[in-house]
């Protein structure tokens, strides 16, 4: 059974349709890249998968015993207020909020893992700093570390490398690859970086006027065919 399956999913806001009749399934261990133009509905799809935006019609089925609190999420943008007092460590630790359920406090193991994720993202020396006073790329890494804390089976990333420098981008891709290969965590990632998408992904979902879903190889041969057609 698939980890997440969408059947005839129609997305939109307030009755206005953005994407119609999406069908795809993600299995455990897959690495799905979602590509498409600006405004094509990628973020909307991710929010619908997460239950933040209601679907207009169609259904999403969570399989393999997947629970909501086993999903990590990196939003495309977080509207944090100008003077919100919060340290990097506090924010990363809050990634465990869903997992800890009704338990009031975070465990020692969770605190250790939060620090470990902060280290992985290369922001260990910033851990006591105020989030609002960091640069855009540094903030992105904080939210990534938080997403890692929330993840145990599936991670959804909305443009994880936007705003990162070349080295951090490389590091980011290798962390995601490791997560996918070694810890068997399923990845769904939105990206405008087609070459990276084709390098790491097992599956591609293209959203736009004509939607495509399939294995990476199929997508590559389809693109090749399109190029030869045009010539």
């Amino acid at each position, binding site marked *: 059974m698939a980890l997440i399956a969408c059947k005839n999913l129609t997305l939109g806001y307030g009755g206005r349709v953005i994407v119609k009749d999406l069908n795809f399934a993600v299995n455990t261990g897959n690495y799905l890249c979602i590509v498409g133009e600006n405004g094509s509905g990628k973020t909307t799809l991710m929010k619908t998968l997460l*239950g933040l935006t209601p679907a207009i019609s169609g259904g999403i089925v969570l399989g393999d015993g997947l629970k*909501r609190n086993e*999903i990590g999420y990196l*939003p495309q943008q977080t509207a944090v207020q100008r003077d919100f007092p*919060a340290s990097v460590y506090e924010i990363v630790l*809050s990634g465990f909020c*869903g997992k800890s359920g009704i338990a009031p406090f975070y465990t020692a193991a969770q605190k250790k893992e939060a620090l470990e994720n902060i280290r992985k993202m290369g922001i260990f020396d910033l851990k006591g700093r105020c989030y609002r006073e960091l640069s855009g790329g540094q903030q992105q890494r904080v939210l990534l570390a938080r997403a890692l804390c929330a993840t145990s089976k599936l991670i959804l990333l909305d443009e994880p490398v936007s705003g990162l420098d070349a080295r951090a981008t490389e590091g980011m891709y290798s962390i995601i690859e490791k997560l996918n290969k070694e810890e068997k965590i399923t990845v769904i990632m939105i990206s405008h970086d087609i070459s990276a998408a084709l390098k790491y992904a097992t599956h591609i979902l293209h959203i736009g006027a004509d939607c495509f879903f399939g294995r990476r190889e199929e997508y590559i041969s389809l693109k090749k065919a399109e190029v030869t057609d045009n010539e």
Partner: protein
Amino acid sequence: MSEIMEKLYFYIQFPMVRKALIVGVLIALCSSLLGVTLVLKRFSFIGDGLSHVAFGAMAVAAVVGLTNNMPLVLAVTAISAILLLRTGTNTRIKGDAAVAMISVGALAVGYLLMNVFPKSGNVSGDVCTTLFGSTSILTLSKKEVLLCIILSAVVMAVFVLFYNKVFALTFDEDFARATGTRTSAYNLLIAMIVAAVIVLAMNLVGSLLISALVIFPALSSMRVFKTFRSVTVCSAVLSVICALLGMLVSIVTGTPVGSTIVVVDIFSFLIFYLIGLLKEGVKK
């Protein structure tokens, strides 16, 4: 100096003064704990908004001819507080605008009703109490003090136990919801304790003071501290100190309690503002 101490000592002998001090400190503590979240969620003016709702409810009670309007007023105020806060940040109308709408709306409806049916008894007196506190804080009954102590204990326990959830929900509600936190349940819980504190405090110290107690300690601490925990702790401590100081000053000088506390809060804000500026200057 010793003269002042003697005067204080003299007044502290009276049980009613001690009761007032206890109630004042507890309300200051509870409202400052919630204040950080309320200010960050754009609900600074919820105390004022709710007092207008209470006024509207009183007008309705007077028109209908209820003799004991307290239960109705309490219920309506608590329900409005929950409706306002429960929806969290995912509403089309943002917190401050929603509070303003409800407050102006209730005020207008209440005033209109009083004019159309001008038989009401003592609405203007009632209005005064919602603004400035009913019983002067010195005439509290034993029952009121006990209620205040119990409620404060509940609020503090809930706040400590759900501190991590409160942070997660205040910082990024969407993320919390997406990763499996039951945000609507927690929002309801937060809304209920906010409603309880505000309704209680409105009756004891008035809505002017409750707004000040919610806003000032949080804003002062945010000038100096940059993490959620330090801001929360600092505003709780600051709020208690200011309330205590304000009450003692008012006892000695005979000034009105509420406004004295607010003035002390204003001073503390100025001090923290300066410290904040100095800190920034040192960093540069």
